[in-house]
């Protein structure tokens, strides 16, 4: 641990304000997601805890505001702050799980394509090319309308959208990696291909993936929010931040702005934090920029 605090990485981190802000934002979201629901007085999805009399209360600093609901309430009398904490949980869960899944699948396909080449390579990479010629939200929309809504379906759609970028990156690094003599040496030593890929190629192509994976969590949170906003994302019983925006959107122009603006600000801060930190990682882990 002390080694980490004395490392160049940590030194640069301390000197980069964007990295500090980004990681602070990410850390507060992690904290909010982990312990937040225990801190709020109301579970917004427990119908028994809701009171319709509390509906559309404005934030506490406005006239008619209620100090119990400092960011106001929505049409069902749900606390917006509590909804955001619960919603961020779902948004982040989806972002992280979809990132891990697409990273795993994309890396595997990229390794196979780069290592074996030939027909396998062509097939995988042409699928990737075709997919990249569509906006990812369009592909996700299409998939969601085909398989239906639900958190698991969102995860499938995001993974199907997200693997491409890993596959391409990994294939590229694999191609340059297998030219290195230590991979030749491993073949000369009689190592089977599966072992060469796992022990000698994979560890050497991982670094650029860290950056992609970080930024992608943010992208996935946004895509999921868009899907939910369009009504093909998560179910109404498990609202993510995107669904909260949609729920408030109907009354946005009636002056009841807080129900959708605050979840929107939450998404913005989350993605902003992730991207700031991702930028720092990109500079830090790219040997060419050093």
């Amino acid at each position: 641990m002390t080694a980490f605090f004395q490392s160049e990485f940590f030194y640069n981190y301390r000197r980069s304000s964007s990295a500090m802000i980004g990681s602070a934002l990410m850390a507060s979201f992690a904290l909010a997601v982990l312990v937040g629901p225990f801190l709020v007085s109301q579970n917004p999805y427990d119908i028994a805890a809701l009171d319709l009399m509390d509906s559309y209360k404005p934030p506490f600093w406005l006239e008619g505001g209620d100090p119990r609901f400092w960011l106001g309430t929505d049409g069902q009398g749900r606390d917006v702050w509590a909804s955001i904490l619960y919603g961020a949980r779902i948004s982040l869960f989806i972002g992280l799980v979809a990132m891990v899944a697409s990273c795993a699948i994309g890396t595997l396909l990229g390794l196979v394509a780069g290592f074996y080449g030939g027909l396998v390579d062509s097939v995988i990479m042409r699928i990737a090319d075709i997919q990249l010629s569509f906006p990812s939200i369009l592909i996700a929309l299409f998939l969601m309308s085909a398989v239906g809504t639900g958190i698991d379906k969102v995860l499938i759609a995001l993974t199907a959208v997200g693997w491409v970028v890993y596959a391409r990156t990994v294939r590229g690094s694999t191609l340059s990696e297998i030219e290195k003599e230590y991979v030749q040496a491993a073949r000369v030593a009689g190592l089977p291909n599966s072992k060469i890929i796992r022990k000698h190629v994979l560890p050497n192509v991982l670094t650029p993936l860290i950056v992609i994976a970080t930024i992608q969590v943010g992208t996935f949170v946004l895509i999921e929010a868009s899907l939910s906003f369009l009504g093909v994302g998560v179910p109404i019983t498990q609202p993510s931040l995107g669904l909260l925006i949609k729920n408030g959107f109907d009354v946005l122009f009636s002056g009841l702005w807080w129900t959708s603006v605050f979840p929107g600000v939450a998404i913005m801060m989350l993605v902003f934090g992730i991207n700031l930190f991702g930028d720092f990682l990109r500079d830090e882990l790219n040997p060419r920029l050093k």
Partner: protein
Amino acid sequence: MAGKAQPKLLEVRDLRTYFHTFAGTVRAVNGVSFDIAAGEVMGLVGESGGGKSVVGFSILGLIDSPGKIEGGEIRLNGEDLVKAGEARLREIRGREISMVFQDPMTSLNPLHSIGRQMDEVLRLHSDLDVKTRHAACVEMLENVGISRAEERLKAYPHQFSGGMRQRVVIAIALLARPRLIIADEPTTALDVTIQSQILKLMRRQIAKKGASMILVTHDLAVVSEMANHITVLYCGNVVERGRTRELIEAPAHPYTRGLIDSIPDLSNRHERLQQIPGTVPDIRNLPKGCNFRDRCPRAQALCGEVEPSLTAQRGSLSAACHFPLRPGKRA
């Protein structure tokens, strides 16, 4: 060292390895034959693009598409490796035949410790338990002249200098006690002072283990120190072969003569260094006749018509030349 009665460890007969590319078929190795007896060191010499490395990779069955072994035999103790399946070849690689690469900077994986990379070979090719394997690694590192071997096993490649890394690479190549080592320009990337250390080390270790070696290089000085006999390649063909001493002192082929003359001689520094004029011809469509004739000072009309075949010359030499050199006479 190697008497007539020595059984042949490796026999290569009429090996042809071609690369089928868009621009045409590259006959990188075009009918190469040679023998190596147990305990012998053979130098495989030629210019860049002469097909030296392809011979090495062909023996290991590691020719990738678009390359293909089109014909010939590679017999290791009588077993034809050209016909052997991939599974059998994997057993042979590392265990029977191993390889030392040119660039020690890239031939070790930067992410694994030296010990782990050494252990990998033993785990693959022996049934030894962890402790025995560890002991074998320590012993081997000490054998290649790395002190505090026990400690150094935990170190990573970047903590070693180029010469030290090449020692590690040699240690890895020798670990499974292979019978044949293919060294592909093992000292080219090293400082001259380190070169001779490494060469001495390799010679000592090979003699100790009773292994044979193919030393692939463009550097005749290196081969003359190491090899029992030499095979000279030009454009994928053997142009001359014979015992090291005879071949270096009085080669029969003008190409070999040219290679020898292009070694700088420090005692004679006022003379301009000799070079072989011209470049290697386009190997995709070789001219009729002798491949070397455009660069050859002795070329005559016949050389443009008939491709010379390898024929016995003085002593142990054979050369593919219509007008071989006689001893004492410069080209």
